[in-house]
Each structure stands twice: as structure tokens, then as C-alpha cells.
């Protein structure tokens, strides 16, 4: 009998708590598949954030630390400096990384901290109930921008990948999406490349993954995939924003 599909070894048997249609599950799986394929599960330490993926430490079957809100890159720095030969990744949402944790992510990237960050951007705070995030689109309605985000009050959506790409310490920054199969395959390639570059000691790598939040966007899961494609992709264009060449 041939196995054609199975749960990656790098995921535990614990059921995800994520809402129906949320793409965190896909992204968890992609990271776990990459860990399996690179055979790094036993040498990887993951850092979970605060937010919807706060319980990521229960899902990844590798050593995990749970950080305080936004500080995952600082925690990862502490771990990596003690174990430079191990693989260290952070898994963070957009409230965690793009709002409260901006100092930590900027300086981890700038130091060229040899870690990989999976940055899940769904343009809203999920866990706390759908508040406006710095990544929320202009006009997007949230519980704290009930009339839609207004530029003159809350500024424009923050483009973290573009910001980090200008830093010398950032070795590889790519933005991907998981709203369809084609993009999911691309996302996995990018995640694998980031982990590989870490194994090669290239420096800071981050993959921004555009993700859905049907619950807090207030739409059906399938519609959410479409909403992401039609509304987020034009603002957050999937692309390689930084790739340090040989000899750099």
C-alpha cells in the first residue's frame, strides 16, 4: 500500500483550534513539511507569538518557546545565540510583528540574526476579536475602525517586508500567499528556501504569508480567499523583496 498523503512528522496529533477557513492550518503544515523534508525537526526550536497562533507550541512537534507579545525575535535571538548550530524560527501574526513587535523584528533583521520568521499577515487582530491592525487596509471595517480604516486617523497599511528589505542584515525576504494552490506551492518553496539559507548561515530570513480571517472579516471561508486575492494582493504584492546574492 502506498501512502499518498499524511500528516507531517513535525506536527503533533493535537487538533488545531483555528476557525473554519482560517489559513493558519495550511501555513503550519507548510512549515512542518519543510522541517520534515530538511530533516531538522530534532534540531529546531520554534518561538510562538501572542495572538491566534499563540498555541503553535502545541502543534509543532519540536522544542518550542512561547514569547510575550511581539518579542518572539528577541526570544529567538536569545535561543540562537546559545545554540548557533540549531535552527530557530519565529511564527508571528501581524498584530504581534507589525505593531507591538516592530522594534524587535527590525533589530533582529538588522543584526542579521540567523533565524527564520514566518510572518502571517491577515490584516486584522484575530484572537482579541477583530480589531484594526497596522496592516488593515484603508476602508476595511474592524471593531476599532467601524467606519473603515481612515488614512488621516490611522495611517496607511504598513509594509513590513518592504521596510526590512532595505536592511543589510536581511538575507532573504519574500511575500507569498496561500489563497490558492498555485500560491501555496510557491509559499512552501519560499519557506523551504528561508530555512535552507538559515542552515547555510546566511542571516535573517522572513517569509510574509498573506492569510485569511473569515471570522473577523465577517465573510464565508471561500469568499475570504477571494477577498484576499482581490483586496490584499494589490496592496501586498507577492514578490521576492530581498535576496542577498553570493559574495554579499
Amino acid at each position, binding site marked *: 500500500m502506498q501512502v499518498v498523503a499524511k500528516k507531517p512528522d513535525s506536527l503533533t496529533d493535537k487538533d488545531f483550534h483555528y476557525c473554519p477557513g482560517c489559513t493558519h492550518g495550511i501555513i503550519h503544515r507548510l512549515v512542518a513539511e519543510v522541517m520534515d523534508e530538511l530533516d531538522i*525537526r*530534532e*534540531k*529546531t*526550536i520554534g*518561538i510562538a507569538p501572542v495572538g491566534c497562533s*499563540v498555541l503553535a*507550541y*502545541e502543534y509543532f*512537534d*519540536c*522544542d*518550542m*518557546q*512561547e*514569547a*510575550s507579545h511581539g*518579542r518572539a525575535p*528577541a*526570544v*529567538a*535571538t*536569545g*535561543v*540562537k*545565540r*546559545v*545554540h548557533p548550530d*540549531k535552527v530557530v524560527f519565529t511564527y508571528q501574526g501581524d498584530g504581534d510583528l507589525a505593531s507591538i513587535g516592530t*522594534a*524587535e523584528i*527590525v*533589530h533582529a533583521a538588522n543584526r542579521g540574526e540567523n533565524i527564520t520568521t514566518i510572518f502571517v499577515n491577515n490584516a486584522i487582530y484575530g484572537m482579541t476579536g477583530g480589531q484594526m491592525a497596522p496592516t488593515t487596509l484603508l476602508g476595511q471595517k474592524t471593531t476599532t475602525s467601524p467606519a473603515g480604516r481612515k488614512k488621516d486617523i490611522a495611517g496607511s497599511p504598513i509594509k513590513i517586508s518592504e521596510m526590512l528589505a532595505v536592511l543589510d542584515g536581511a538575507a532573504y525576504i519574500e511575500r507569498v500567499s496561500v489563497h490558492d494552490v498555485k500560491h501555496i506551492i510557491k509559499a512552501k518553496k519560499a519557506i523551504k528556501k528561508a530555512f535552507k539559507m538559515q542552515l547555510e548561515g546566511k542571516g535573517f530570513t522572513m517569509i510574509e504569508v498573506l492569510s485569511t480571517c473569515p471570522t473577523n472579516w465577517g465573510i464565508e471561508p471561500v469568499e475570504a480567499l477571494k477577498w484576499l486575492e482581490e483586496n490584499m494582493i494589490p496592496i501586498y504584492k507577492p514578490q521576492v523583496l530581498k535576496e542577498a546574492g553570493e559574495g554579499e
Partner: protein
Amino acid sequence: MAKKILMKGNEAIAEAAVKAGCRYFFGYPITPQNELPAYLSWRLPEVGGVFLQAESEVAASNMVYGAAGAGARVMTSSSSPGISLKAEGISYIAGAELPAVIVNMMRGGPGLGGIQPAQSDYFQATKGMAHGDFRLFVLAPSSVQEAVDLTIDAFELADKYRNPVLLLADGMIGQMMEPVSFERSIDPDDLPDKPWATDGAEGREKNIINSLSLDPAELEKHNQKLKEKYDQMEKEEVRYETYYLDDADIVIVAYGTSARISLSAMELAREEGYKVGLIRPITLFPFPKEIIAKTSEKIDDFLTVEMSTGQMVEDVELAVCANNSSVHFYGRTGGMIPTPEEILAEIKKIGGGK
């Protein structure tokens, strides 16, 4: 005995950390503790360790969390306003039961305050460092040599209890030069294993470093477990020094720099015939309440001396309340240092004793 060398308090503590087997330091500049990170910035690489200047105190304390969770002996240092920022990480460190050593070279506050020595963070250190039901182990040196010895003890206690340990001194101890010797030296390779650390789940079940418990029954159990640790500290780890308690009529209670100055005041008073004794708490948590309570059975007048407007004095009042002794207070604050003569004048005001 190892030879004595003249060292500034901040640098001596830094060297003591190295001698304690600490190889990782994450910090952020703030006066008056800057010599400590500066020393470690060259000393740690020399012994194969890592010194990292973080982007903020918040980041530094979270780096300490990561490194401690990864199994390392790790330290950070700061001064009052910086400790407030580190409080976030310290709460998580306590919640996740991680061993780490934090140094606070106190300066005047609140807010930006000043940069001169103070003892106004006693409440913060012993009662309210940050959110949640937790305690720091708090050690208060009153000389540079004692700072060295307590730094090494701090690492051992942190590992023993899997709890953050705070070395609480002030700018005076940090900036003062005194002869010190380093009697102990611990090789980090000889330290006991930390089977709970996240260093890669090779051939074992995964480890998790975490302070989250969404189930209140679980969290209560965790809180009770922490409480048991603190109770054990109170039972087994209380440290203090006493002077002239046998014949004293007035007993001063003071720690750190205030205790040093109070010792001089005590000698001056004795020269004038006042029978003054002194209790110097070395551990502020666990607080030496039993010796103070026992002393209050025969002493009517206590004088608490602090470089604050009165913080530890509340613990002294609690300790003596069963015997209705009077607790007097003398404090200078904001970076002002009490003189022995000022304290002597307070002793005379209390009278008695002669």
C-alpha cells in the same frame, strides 16, 4: 586565598558573573551601571561567551528569557527606569520558571528621576515587579566583595529554584572601588544538565518553555507550585547579619549602602554610650522577618534607615507588630545619601538607650 584586586562594583559583579559560569549577557545602556556591560562586552567573548547590546530593555529581558529557556546561565543588568521596562520579560521568566540573574543598580525616581544612588525600588523588587503572582529572589550586597559573592550565589540560587534572582544594589555599590578577591570559579561545562531546556528535541519528547495556562484550574495549580517554591525560600534561604543584639536598646534595620552608613552611625552612638544594635537583611525576599520579630520581644525601638521615603520599613513594622515595638524611620532619597551624623541624630531623638 585568591589575591585581592581593586575593582569598581559594576566591573566586579561582571567578573563574578563570568566566574559563576555565566556566558551570556543581554543588556541596554543606562547610568549608573554602564561599566558592567562594558566589561562583559570584551570579557565574555574572551571566554567564548556572547555579549549582546539589545535594542531596548524590553528586548534584552526577552532575550534573557530565550537564552535561559535554551539552558544557559544568563544575566542582564540595568538601573531603575530600565528595570521597569525589563519587568515584562521578568514576569514571563518567573512564570515559565526560568533561572536568570538580573542586576538593578538603583537610582532615584520616579520617572526618569536622577542618576545618583537610591533605594527606592524596594517595593518593585520585593512586591510588585510586574503583573502576576510571583516573587523574585532578592539579594542586597553592602560592599563590593559581598556583591561578588552574592552574584555567584545568585546564579546558583536561580538554577536551584528555577527562578529569577535580582541583585539589588545602588549606584554607590556600582561606582565604588574596593579590594575584592574571587574565591570561586565555576566551569559552565560542569553545570548540571537542564533536561527541560529547549535545545533541540533530539531523541526525546519536545520541551516547551511557556507561561500560558488558559485553564484556570491549571493556572491555579501552577501558582500554588510557585508559592511552594517561595515558601521553601522563606524556610531555607533567609540571610542577614546582626550587630550587638545582645545588649542593644535600639536596633537599626538597614540594607545595602544604608546599612554600611548605619554601621558607622552605630559605632558613633556606642562611643557616646547609646546601646545601638543593627540587623542587616541580605536577602530582601525572603525577608528576615523572624530575627526582627524575635528581637522585638525585648527591643522597644527600631530605626529603619533607607535611601527612600520608606519602603522596607513596612516589612519591619509587620515583623514587630506582635510585640508593639515602635518603628522609627529615617530616609534620604532622590540620590541624597544619609550621613552617619544624621542617623546618630535620629538615634538621639529616639532617646532611651543611654
